[in-house]
């Protein structure tokens, strides 16, 4: 059944399943298995993103992935594309430079909630304000996973993390509202489980002229461990049962609290704004 068999950097002989034949030239097979924990949603996003890039109608040579630091920052390294793994939080300005110097490129930034919204928060809002023609995928797992579970800008109030052992005091970002208010042209939120919707949203993102943001909710065992929520699969079940798809939802209602009783998904914003150049 294998289409490709390579001995990987970890010494495991990997045969990529046949169903990935369409994206086999986009995945660095020799690097599998990837570094992410059991139950991480990033592998799912990786597959979807590869498929979306393949079918975006834009040559793969024109796609560039820029990632910062963190678990999500490693995603670019598994995609066989022009990928830049840069410093913490600075993926967006790097991408802005790429896009300005060559507007033909389709530049996609993939980053976590900490990378893009905390240390890179300033770059995020300013790129949205300018409406730079780049795509940003924020993988929101509600925590700093790679460093072992500190609170991030999207950690809900009350959640326990290593730096909020008595429960988190602060309010989280409402990411779609933030992106909209800062000026993004396209704002959507999906989970890694809503694969068809997320896939369509990714395709749409490549077509959008302007700053496109997709928030992808992803399970993380670091988050569930700290909060006695079971395994990643239990968080995944929540992401299956609770979400309501409402494309016309009031953006102010999109905050996700600790109970996760209300998770609203959808393609919330698509509007035309002048982009910063070109």
């Amino acid at each position, binding site marked *: 059944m294998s289409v490709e068999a390579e001995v990987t950097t970890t010494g495991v002989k*990997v045969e990529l399943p046949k169903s990935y034949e369409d994206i086999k030239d986009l995945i660095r097979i020799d690097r599998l298995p990837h570094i992410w924990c059991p139950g991480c949603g990033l592998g799912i996003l990786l597959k979807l993103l590869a498929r979306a890039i393949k079918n975006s*109608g834009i040559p793969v040579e024109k796609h560039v992935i820029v990632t910062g630091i963190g678990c999500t920052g490693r995603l670019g390294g598994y995609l066989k594309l022009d*990928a*830049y793994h*840069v410093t913490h939080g600075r993926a967006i300005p790097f991408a802005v*430079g790429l896009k*300005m110097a*060559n507007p033909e490129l389709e530049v996609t930034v993939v980053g976590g909630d900490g990378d893009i919204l905390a240390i890179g928060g300033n770059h995020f809002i300013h790129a949205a304000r300018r409406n730079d023609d780049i795509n940003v995928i924020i993988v929101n797992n509600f925590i700093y996973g790679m460093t072992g579970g500190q609170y991030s800008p999207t950690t809900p109030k009350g959640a326990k993390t290593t730096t909020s052992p008595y429960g988190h005091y602060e309010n989280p970002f409402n990411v779609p509202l933030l992106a909209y208010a800062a000026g993004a042209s396209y704002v959507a939120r999906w989970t890694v489980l809503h694969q068809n919707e997320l896939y369509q949203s990714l395709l749409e993102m490549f077509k959008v002229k302007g700053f496109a943001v997709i928030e992808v909710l992803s399970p993380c065992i670091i988050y569930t461990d700290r909060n006695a929520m079971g395994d990643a699969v239990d968080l995944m079940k929540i992401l299956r049962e609770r979400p309501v798809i409402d494309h016309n939802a009031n953006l102010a209602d999109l905050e996700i609290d600790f109970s996760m009783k209300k998770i609203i998904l959808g393609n919330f914003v698509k509007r035309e704004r002048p982009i910063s150049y070109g």
Partner: protein
Amino acid sequence: MQKVKINGYCTIEEEKRFKSISNEKNLGDMALVQQDEVWSMRRLVNLHKMKRPIGKIIVNIDLCKDCRFCIEFCPPNGVLEESKDVNSKGYHYPVVKPGKELDCVACRMCEKVCPDFAITVVSEEYITYDKYYGVSRHAHSAELYKKDLDKLLRPGIHFLDGNTAVAEGAITAGCRFYAGYPITPPSNEIAEYMSYRLPQVGGKFIQMEDEIGSIMAVLGGASAAGGVKSMTATSGPGFSLMQEEIGLGSMLEIPALIVDVMRAGPSTGIPTLLGQGDILQAKYGSHGDYEIVAYLPANPQEAFDFTIKAINMAEKYRVVAIVLSDQLVGHMYGKVRVPEFDEIEIVERPKPTVPPPDQYLPYDSRYLVPPMAIAGTGYRANNESLTHTDKGYPTTDRDASFKLVMRLVRKIRENEKEIAEWEEYMLDDAEYVIVSYGSTSGSVRRAIKVLRAQGYRVGMLRPKTAWPFPGWVVENLASRGVQKFVTVEVNMGKMYHVVREFSRGVPVEHIPYAPPGYIPDPDYVINNVRKVIEG
């Protein structure tokens, strides 16, 4: 017989008619989807004719990490279960439950939800995404930025200030992208001038939200579009913010130019007055081992020339190049001679010679300076800020780390004699050598003339490149019998330490500037050097 329109949808009226016909014929739902019936509407499912695929779940055991997503999210809920065995990493993997082999409908949910590429579902019918969606629509475009010689500064004599000379030098050298953040002293001249000039020559200007954003945009711009030469300009505080990204540029080996118009520090200091305190930071500011090239212009002519040279060195060695100008040089007006264009040497970065993408190694250690693939040209290189292998994959391997870091430093250290430049002023018979650079060297030059007239045998060594530092020149002077080195710079002793490193035991003294932010005037230098000489 007309064609059956499979994907049509029917209105409510049509559906009523549809049902009445089926009732008349008394055939039930099933007969309505006979092949010869003509319905341009939604068809009911003929369970006798519709094939249900039987899926075969194949698990790549070694990739599984036992997240149990596939077991939980199997819609018939129960085709898969955890194995009793474990894989090579100790994880239980999914297996098909005994007796449920035919229950899989090939919905592929397990495959989709698997984060680890471990599951594949095979069925008879197969649709690839390729067939659904169109082919690529973009054709490869021509190079974006072509040199427009008419728009460049004409050869001949010009009267420019140092900051404008830097900007014009950069444009002459091919810089077509500027990203910066306003800061005194360079913002008024370099940034504003570039925002005016770059669009004229087909370049682009952006004002970013901070200096970190600026340098990142520069590194990004330098990676794209046929290798646009890119630059930023800043001063002390902004330069400090950029330090991490200088390390990034060194690791990714992206040619970029930073112009640091030094001002008085520390911290915000005196923004409008000069300092020379960034000399060591330029080389040692970022963590880890790397090498940069830094030039020290002393007048507008050198600001013009050294900017071209710095961009050339950045391109040649794929390093971050820095022009360490200072406030006085930046605001100093002077004569700038622009040579004929064919006299100006312009260097382009090494380009890959192998066809894309698989033979190309982004960090090929067979080269000292590996060829650089430009984003968007099909090489699909992984540019990695972690310690990486030749292929650009992150690694913790001892040899790979050694090989990489050795190469990053060797490419400058092995070529330092070619890169380094310096001026020797009245050094032939000098017993006392004043080491000075930048705007300060003007005062020293005047002081030396006066001191020579008074009978003191003094001379000046003026490094034109701070890094690599021409240490062998200092060594030669020391072994030739120089009695003392004296450093004159607008700081509390920075190049002093560098000179001491090479002085072979010959005493080195530092003359500190008196008021912060002010250039030591010739009288001050004369008095203090005389004190040093006379003890």
